[in-house]
C-alpha cells in the first residue's frame, strides 16, 4: 500500500534532490524523516518519556504524554510537509520556481526557520485582542453555541475563557489580552451596583473569578497544551492614552475609572503571587507596560508596585518605553501601533484614529520566519562583505515567503476558515510579517568579533558595529518592504525555544569542523556566557531599540533581591540604559503538590523540591519539560548573578 500525496511532481523531485544533497539526517532534523513513517513514529513516541524528544514542533508547554498528545503529534510531520508544499506552490506562482525551491532548501538545510511550520500555511501566529467587541457583542462567532453579551462578571469571565479556547485554536502563537482588566472593571462595577456582591466580600468575590480564570487558562485546552495567554499591567499613562474618549456600554467614561482599573490590576498581581504558593502557573504571562521618560517612571506608583510584587517570584516581564505607541503582548514580540498605522496609508489611518480606545490593542504578527545568522558566517567564509550580501538576499527570501503566506492567510479568511478575521476580532492589516533573527552572538563569534577580558565575554568594537550592520540591513529591507510588498514587516530576536537548538544541530551537520555550538542565543549575549551582568544591560540598551519587534533581556538571579530598594535601583538602571523589555529570572522550586517556593523545602507541606520553574524563553515552565539541549546544557550552564 502506498500513501498518496497528489503534489506537483516538481515538489517531489525537489525533496528527493534535497535528501540526496543533504542526507537523511538533515531531513530527520527537519522532522520530515522517520516521523513521516507512522509505524516508526508510533514506536518512537511510546518509547520516549518526553514528547519533546519526538515532536517536530515541541515547546515546554507540552508536558503531558498521553493519547491526546499522540494524536496531536502524529499529524504534525504531515501538516508540516503540507504547509511547505502550499507555500512552495504559492512562491512558485508569484516568484518562480527558483525562489520556491530556494525557500524549501533553506528551510530544510537550516538557513532559515519557519516557525510553527505545521500551521504555517493555515493559521496566523499571534494577536493582542481587545475584549471590547466581546463585551459589546458576546460570542456570536462561535456558531455552535452563540452567546449574547455578558451582563455580569461571572458570564464575562466565562466568555473570556471560551474566547481564549476558540482563539487559541485559530492561531499558532499567543492570545494576548492586554485590556482584560479594563473590561473586567466594568463588570465588577456592574455587579456592585446590582447588589450581587455580598457586603464586605468584594475582594473574595473578585478573587474567586481570578481563580476560575487562571486555573482555566492553564488547562490543556489548545489541543495538548495550555493556550499561550498574556495579561498586561497598563500604567496610568497607557490607560489614559489608549482609552481616551472610550466608554463602557453604560456610557461611562473609561478614563474616569482609571484608579479602579489600577486597583483591579494590583489585586490580580497580588492574588497570583499568593496563589502560586498553592499552585505554580505558567499562564498568563505577565507584562507590566510602563512609560519611562526623562530618567524616571512617569507612573512611579505603578512601577514601584510591580517592583514590590515581583520580589517574590519575579514573574512579571518589564516593558519600558518612552512612548505609548506599542504594547508588549507576546512573551517578546512588541507590536508597535505607530508603525502599523503608518503602513496603512492616510485613508485607513483616519479610520484607525477613530478607533483609538480598546480596539487599538488589536495588533499582532501573522507569521515569523527566522534567519539563522551564524549560518551566514559559515557560508561567507567569515568575510564581512560576503556576509552582508548573503544576509540581504536571505532577508528578501524571507520577505517573499512572508508575502505569500499572507496571501494564503488572506485566502483562508475569504474562505471563512479563520472566522475571527471575518467578525473583525482579528485584522490582517494589523499584523506584521515578522523577520526573526537568532544567534547574533554566535555569528559575531564565528566572524572573530568577540573577546573575553576581565569583565567577561564582550563584542569587540568591530563586533558591535557588525551587529549594528546586521540590524541596519534588516531594518532597511523592512522599510522598503512596505512599498515592495504592501504590508509591514518587523524584526524580532526570537525566543527560538526549539529553533535555536535545531538550527545549531543543522549547522553542526553541515559544518562539523567549524560549528560547535549546542544552541544559538536568544539574547545579545548567551545566557550561558560568563560575563558581567552590566554587559548584558549595555548591549540591550544599545540594540533593543533597533529591534522593532522586540527582544527581551533575561537577568538570572542567583538569589532573591535582599531589599525592594536594591531591586528598584537595578530596575531604574536598566530603564535608564534604554533596555525596553526585560525580566529577572529566579529559580522557583515546586514540591510534588505543585506548591511554589524558593529554596529546597516547601513551607506549605514540608515536601522536598522536585522540580524548578524558570523562564525557558519568555514563560515560566518546569525545567523537567525543557527540551534536552536546554535542560542538560543551557539551564545547567546559565549564568546566575
Amino acid at each position, binding site marked *: 500500500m502506498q500513501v498518496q500525496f497528489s503534489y506537483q511532481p516538481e515538489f517531489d523531485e525537489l525533496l528527493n534532490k534535497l535528501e540526496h544533497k543533504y542526507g537523511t539526517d538533515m531531513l530527520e532534523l527537519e522532522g520530515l524523516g522517520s516521523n513521516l513513517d507512522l509505524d516508526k513514529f508510533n514506536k518512537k513516541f511510546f518509547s520516549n518519556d518526553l514528547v519533546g524528544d519526538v515532536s517536530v514542533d515541541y515547546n515546554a508547554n507540552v508536558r503531558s504524554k498521553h493519547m491526546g498528545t499522540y494524536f496531536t503529534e502524529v499529524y504534525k510531520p504531515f501538516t508540516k510537509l503540507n504547509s511547505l508544499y502550499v507555500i512552495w506552490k504559492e512562491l512558485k506562482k508569484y516568484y518562480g520556481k527558483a525562489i520556491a525551491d530556494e525557500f524549501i532548501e533553506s528551510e530544510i538545510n537550516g538557513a532559515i526557520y519557519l516557525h510553527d511550520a505545521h500551521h504555517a500555511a493555515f493559521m496566523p501566529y499571534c494577536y493582542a485582542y481587545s475584549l471590547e467587541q466581546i463585551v459589546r457583542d458576546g460570542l456570536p462567532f462561535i456558531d455552535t453555541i452563540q452567546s449574547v453579551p455578558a451582563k455580569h462578571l461571572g458570564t464575562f469571565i466565562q466568555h473570556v475563557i471560551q474566547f481564549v479556547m476558540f482563539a487559541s485554536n485559530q492561531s499558532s502563537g499567543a492570545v494576548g489580552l492586554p485590556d482584560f482588566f479594563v473590561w473586567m472593571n466594568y463588570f465588577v462595577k456592574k455587579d456592585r451596583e446590582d447588589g450581587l456582591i455580598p457586603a464586605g466580600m468584594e475582594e473574595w468575590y473578585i478573587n474567586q473569578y481570578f481563580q476560575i480564570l487562571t486555573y482555566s487558562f492553564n488547562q490543556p485546552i489548545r489541543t495538548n497544551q495550555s493556550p499561550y495567554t498574556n495579561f498586561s499591567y497598563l500604567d496610568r499613562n497607557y490607560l489614559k492614552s489608549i482609552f481616551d474618549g472610550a466608554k463602557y456600554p453604560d456610557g461611562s467614561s473609561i478614563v474616569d475609572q482609571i484608579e479602579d482599573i489600577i486597583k483591579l490590576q494590583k489585586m490580580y498581581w497580588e492574588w497570583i503571587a499568593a496563589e502560586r504558593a498553592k499552585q505554580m502557573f505558567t499562564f498568563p504571562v505577565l507584562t507590566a507596560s510602563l512609560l519611562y521618560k526623562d530618567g524616571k517612571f512617569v507612573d512611579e506608583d505603578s512601577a514601584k508596585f510591580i517592583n514590590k510584587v515581583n520580589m517574590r517570584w519575579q514573574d512579571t516581564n518589564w516593558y519600558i518605553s518612552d512612548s505609548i505607541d506599542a504594547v508588549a503582548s507576546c512573551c517578546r514580540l512588541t507590536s508597535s501601533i505607530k508603525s502599523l498605522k503608518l503602513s496603512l496609508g492616510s485613508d485607513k489611518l483616519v479610520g484607525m484614529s477613530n478607533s483609538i480606545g480598546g480596539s487599538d490593542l488589536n495588533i499582532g504578527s501573522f507569521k515569523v520566519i527566522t534567519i539563522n545568522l551564524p549560518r551566514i558566517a559559515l557560508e561567507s567564509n567569515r568575510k564581512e562583505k560576503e556576509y552582508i550580501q548573503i544576509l540581504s538576499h536571505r532577508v528578501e527570501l524571507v520577505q517573499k515567503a512572508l508575502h505569500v503566506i499572507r496571501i494564503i492567510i488572506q485566502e483562508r479568511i475569504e474562505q471563512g476558515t479563520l472566522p475571527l478575521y471575518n467578525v473583525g476580532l482579528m485584522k490582517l492589516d494589523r499584523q506584521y510579517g515578522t523577520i526573526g533573527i537568532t544567534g547574533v552572538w554566535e555569528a559575531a563569534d564565528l566572524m572573530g568579533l568577540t573577546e573575553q577580558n*576581565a*569583565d*567577561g565575554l564582550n563584542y569587540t568594537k568591530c563586533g558591535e558595529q557588525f551587529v549594528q550592520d546586521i540590524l541596519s540591513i534588516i531594518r532597511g529591507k523592512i522599510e522598503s518592504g512596505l512599498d515592495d510588498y504592501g504590508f509591514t514587516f518587523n524584526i524580532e530576536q526570537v525566543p527560538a525555544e526549539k529553533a535555536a537548538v535545531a538550527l545549531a544541530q543543522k549547522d553542526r551537520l553541515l559544518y562539523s569542523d567549524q560549528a560547535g555550538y549546542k544552541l544559538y542565543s536568544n539574547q545579545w549575549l548567551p545566557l550561558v556566557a560568563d560575563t*558581567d551582568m552590566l554587559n548584558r544591560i549595555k548591549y540591550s540598551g544599545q540594540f533593543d531599540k533597533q529591534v522593532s519587534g522586540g527582544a527581551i533581556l533575561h537577568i538570572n538571579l542567583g538569589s532573591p533581591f535582599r531589599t525592594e530598594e536594591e531591586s528598584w*535601583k537595578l530596575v531604574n*538602571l536598566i530603564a535608564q540604559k534604554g533596555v525596553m523589555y526585560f525580566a529577572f529570572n529566579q529559580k522557583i522550586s515546586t514540591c510534588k503538590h505543585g506548591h511554589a517556593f524558593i529554596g529546597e*523545602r516547601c513551607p506549605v507541606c514540608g515536601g522536598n523540591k522536585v522540580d524548578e520553574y524558570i523562564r525557558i524563553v519568555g514563560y515560566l515552565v518546569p525545567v523537567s519539560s525543557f527540551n534536552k539541549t536546554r535542560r542538560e546544557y543551557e539551564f545547567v550552564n546559565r549564568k546566575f*548573578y
Partner: protein
Amino acid sequence: MNIHLNRAFFSNDNPHLFGLSIYFQGCDRNPKCPYCHNPQTWAPYQGYEYELDELIEVIFNKLDYVFDSYDKLSLCYVGGEPLAPYNRDAVLAISKAVKARYGDKIVNVLFSWRMPDEIIEGGLMPYIEYIDEFVLGPYDYTLRNYTDENNTEVGFPASTNQLYIKKEELIYASTI
C-alpha cells in the same frame, strides 16, 4: 606596573551596596583555605593582564556607566588576595584614584585573609589608606555562614570567624 585580574564584575559582595568587585589573581596564604570559593584565583600572574593605568580607566568606565543611577557604589577588592605582595600596590593606586574621582560616593571594601594584627604587624597599613571597610580573616569552611536551613545561600561574611569592620575600627586596633 602590570596587574593580573581574574574578573571585574558587578555584584552584591557588599551587604549594603551594589557595586563592582575586582578579583585579583594570586593568593599568598599557605595553605589555602579549604573549600575556597575562588580557587581559580590562587595562582599569581594568571588571568587578564592590565597596565595599572589601563585598569584604572576600565574601572572608571564601568563605574561611570552605573553612577547615573546610584548615589553610592561599592568597589570590592577581592581575590585571590588583594594584599599579596604583587597586588598591594595596585590596591593602593586604585583605591586612591577612585576616591579622587568619586569621593564619598564610592565605598572601598577590602576582602583579605589577613586579620587586623597581620595587616598591622605586616606593615600593610600604608596600602589601605583609602579603604573604607574590611572583611578580614580566612574563609573557614567549618564556620561557614549560610542564611538558610538548606545550606544553599552563602551569608555575609562567608564564615563567621571573619570580621566586617570599618576603617576606624582597624585604625583603633592599630593603636593598641
